[in-house]
C-alpha cells in the first residue's frame, strides 16, 4: 500500500504528474488550476522530473505548444480552468482531430460574465464536443487516480486521443483530504513507456501534420474520430481493472450507489455526489428506495450502460452544475438520451445547482428527493428544469 497523505486535489494531481514525469508541459496560470502547475514547476526546478516546462504567454499557446510537443513524439501534459479552457477551445479540437494523447487536469470553474473564480462545470461542458475524453472526479483521490488512468487511455494505441481529468474548483482543488499515494515504481510500470506514433522528430521519415481536407474526405475523417471514441469505454474498463489490481480501488464508466433495488435515482457528477450519497443514506434509513448514479466518463458518454443501470427506476432527478440557457442542462440531455433506449421510460427532472461555486447543501438534496418521491408516485413532472439553491 502506498503512503497516506493529507493533500489538496491540486497537490494530488501535481504529485501524479511528478510520478508520470511527462517529457513536456506547456502551461499558463489560471485560478484555481494555478496551484497545480505551480507545484509542478517546483518539481521541474528542483530536478525531480525530466520535464521541459514551457511557460507560455496564454492558454491558446499552451495548447498549441502541447500539440507541437505531442506531434514531435513524447508524453505531454498541461492543466487549466475556465477562461483558460475557453481560450484553448480552437486548439482542443485540433488536438483531438490530430489524435494527440495530451492529458490535461481541468479544475472546473465557472465562465464569465460575470467574472467568477469558483467551481462549476460550465468550462468542461463547453468543451464537450471538442473530441476530448472527459473523466470527472469526485474528490482528490479520484483526481489523482484518474490522472494515471487518463494517460493509459489516451496513449493506448487503439485510441490516441487527448483526455481531460476534471475536478471541482476549490471544493476539491483546494480542500485537504485523505489521499493514498501510489509508489513511484508502481506508477512507472502502470503508465509504461510512451510509444511515439509518427513522430515529427523522426527526421529520416518526414511526416506532414495538419493537412487541408475538404468535402471529399472530411466527413469520413470525422466519422473515424467518432468511431475511435466508441472504443474508449472498453479500454477505460481494461485500464480500470489493471488499476484495481494495483491499488484495490475500483473504477467504472460511472459509479452506481445503492442503485440495485432503487425506485428513484439522482444523477450527479463530481464533488456533489459525495454530499448526495450522505442524504441518500438518511432516506434509505427511512425506507426510501433511492440510489445515485455518478457519471465518471462523460465523453464518450456510456448511454447504453447507464440506461441499463437506471432501467428499473421510476423517476430520476438529474443535477447539473452547468447550464444551457434556453435549454436543459447538459447532463440532463445525456441522461434523457440514455432513457430513449429504455422500454419503460422513467420520469426525469432537471435541477440546476451550484453555479459559480454556490454551495450545494444537504437541504437542497432533501428537497430534490422529496419531490422525486412524489414524481415517482404520480408519474408527473411539473417543471422539467428548475434552479435549486437559488435566491428569489
Amino acid at each position, binding site marked *: 500500500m502506498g503512503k497516506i497523505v493529507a493533500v489538496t486535489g491540486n497537490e494530488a494531481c501535481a504529485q501524479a504528474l511528478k510520478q508520470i514525469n511527462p*517529457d*513536456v508541459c*506547456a502551461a499558463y496560470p489560471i485560478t484555481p488550476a494555478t496551484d497545480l502547475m505551480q507545484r509542478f514547476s517546483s518539481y521541474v526546478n528542483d530536478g525531480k522530473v*525530466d*520535464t*521541459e516546462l*514551457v*511557460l*507560455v*504567454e*496564454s492558454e*491558446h*499557446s*499552451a495548447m*498549441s*505548444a*502541447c*500539440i*507541437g*510537443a*505531442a*506531434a*514531435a*513524439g*513524447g508524453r*505531454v501534459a498541461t492543466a487549466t480552468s475556465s477562461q483558460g479552457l475557453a481560450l484553448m477551445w*480552437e*486548439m482542443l479540437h*485540433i488536438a483531438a482531430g*490530430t489524435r494527440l494523447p495530451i492529458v490535461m487536469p481541468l479544475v472546473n470553474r465557472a465562465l464569465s460574465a460575470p467574472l467568477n473564480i469558483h467551481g462549476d462545470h460550465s468550462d468542461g461542458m463547453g468543451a464537450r464536443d471538442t473530441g476530448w475524453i472527459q473523466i470527472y472526479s469526485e474528490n482528490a483521490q479520484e483526481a489523482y487516480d484518474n490522472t494515471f488512468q487518463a494517460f493509459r487511455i489516451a496513449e493506448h494505441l487503439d485510441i490516441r486521443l487527448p483526455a481531460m481529468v476534471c475536478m471541482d474548483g476549490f471544493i476539491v482543488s483546494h480542500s485537504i483530504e485523505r489521499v493514498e499515494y501510489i509508489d513511484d515504481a508502481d506508477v512507472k510500470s502502470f503508465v509504461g513507456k510512451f510509444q511515439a506514433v509518427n513522430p*515529427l*522528430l*523522426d*527526421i529520416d521519415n*518526414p*511526416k*506532414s*501534420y*495538419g*493537412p*487541408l*481536407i*475538404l468535402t*471529399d*474526405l472530411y466527413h469520413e475523417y470525422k466519422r473515424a474520430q467518432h468511431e475511435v471514441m466508441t472504443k474508449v469505454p472498453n479500454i477505460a474498463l481494461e485500464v480500470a481493472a489493471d488499476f484495481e489490481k494495483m491499488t484495490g480501488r475500483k473504477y467504472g464508466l460511472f459509479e452506481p450507489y445503492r442503485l440495485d433495488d432503487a425506485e428513484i435515482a439522482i444523477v450527479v457528477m463530481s464533488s456533489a455526489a459525495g454530499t448526495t450519497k450522505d442524504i441518500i443514506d438518511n432516506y434509505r434509513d427511512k425506507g426510501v428506495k433511492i440510489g445515485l448514479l455518478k457519471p465518471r466518463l462523460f465523453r464518450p458518454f456510456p448511454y447504453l450502460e447507464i440506461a441499463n443501470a437506471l432501467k428499473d427506476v421510476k423517476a430520476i432527478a438529474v443535477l447539473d452544475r452547468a447550464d444551457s440557457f434556453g435549454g436543459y442542462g447538459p447532463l440532463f440531455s445525456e441522461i434523457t438520451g440514455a432513457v430513449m433506449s429504455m422500454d419503460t421510460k422513467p420520469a426525469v427532472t432537471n435541477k440546476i445547482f451550484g453555479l459559480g461555486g454556490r454551495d450545494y447543501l444537504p437541504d437542497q438534496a432533501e428537497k430534490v428527493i422529496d419531490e422525486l418521491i412524489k414524481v415517482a408516485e404520480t408519474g408527473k413532472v411539473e417543471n422539467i428544469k428548475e434552479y435549486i439553491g437559488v435566491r428569489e
Partner: protein
Amino acid sequence: MTTKPLKLRELAKGEDRFTHGHRMCAGCGAPIVVKQVLMATDYPIIASNATGCLEVSSCIQQYTAWKIPWMHSAFENAAATISGIEAMYRSLVKQGKIEDKEVKFIAFGGDGGTYDIGFQSLSGAMERGHDMLYICYDNGAYMNTGIQRSSATPFGANTTTCPAGDVIPGKLQHRKDLTRIMAAHGIPYVAQASPANWRDMMKKVQKAFEIKGPKFMNVISPCNRGWRSKTNDAIALSKLAVETCYWPLFEIENGVTRVTVKPK
C-alpha cells in the same frame, strides 16, 4: 556543420525539400522564399506553418510538398507550435531518448499570421528564447482569404476591406514596422530579406542557423493576385522594393544594425 557555399551551380544540385506540385498560384513569391530558405542549409529542419496560402496549398489530403517534418495546427500559433516541437526535442535529447542531430526549427507565417493574429504567440516564443527561426513572408495583406487589409498593408493601399472608395481612398493607416518590433525583443538575430537578393537572403538564413536562440526574418513576398501584378513580376517587384528603399535589407545582430544591401 560547415556553411555551404552559395554557388548557384552547387545549390541547383541539392534535393528540393519543398517540391513542385504544390498548389500555390503561378508567380507567387512565397514558395520562392521557402525554397531559398531550405536550400541555404543542409541541417535537418522541422517547420511549423501558420494557416495561410502557403499552408493550404502545400499539404492537401494525402499530398504534401514538404520533404521535411512539417506541422500546421492553426492560424495564430505557428510560433507556439514550433516552440512545443523544439521543447520536446530538447527534452528527449537531454534525457538521452533521441540523438542530437543538430535539428533546426523554423516557423513560417504570412503577414496576417505574424503581424496580427499570431503576434502574441510570436512575441511569447521569442521572449522564451526557443532555438528557432521565424520567417514571415510578407505580401502585405490577408491574401488567402481574398486580399483584406493587415497591419502590414501599406498606407493608401486598396484592399477588399479598405477599398479605394468615393469617400475613403484606401488604407488610412501606416504599416506596422514589425522587424523593428522584433528587434526590440532583444533577440540575437533579426533581419529583413528579399527573394530578389537571393544570396543576401540565404546568407542571413545561414547566419541565423549558426546562432542559438530565437531569430526572426521578415521577407517581402509579392502576391500577383493581391498586388494586381503580372505572374512573372514577383522577383522584379521584390527587387524594386529594395531599390526604392521600401524594403531595406538589413540585419540586427546582437543589437547592432547593419545594412546588407545598399541601393544605388
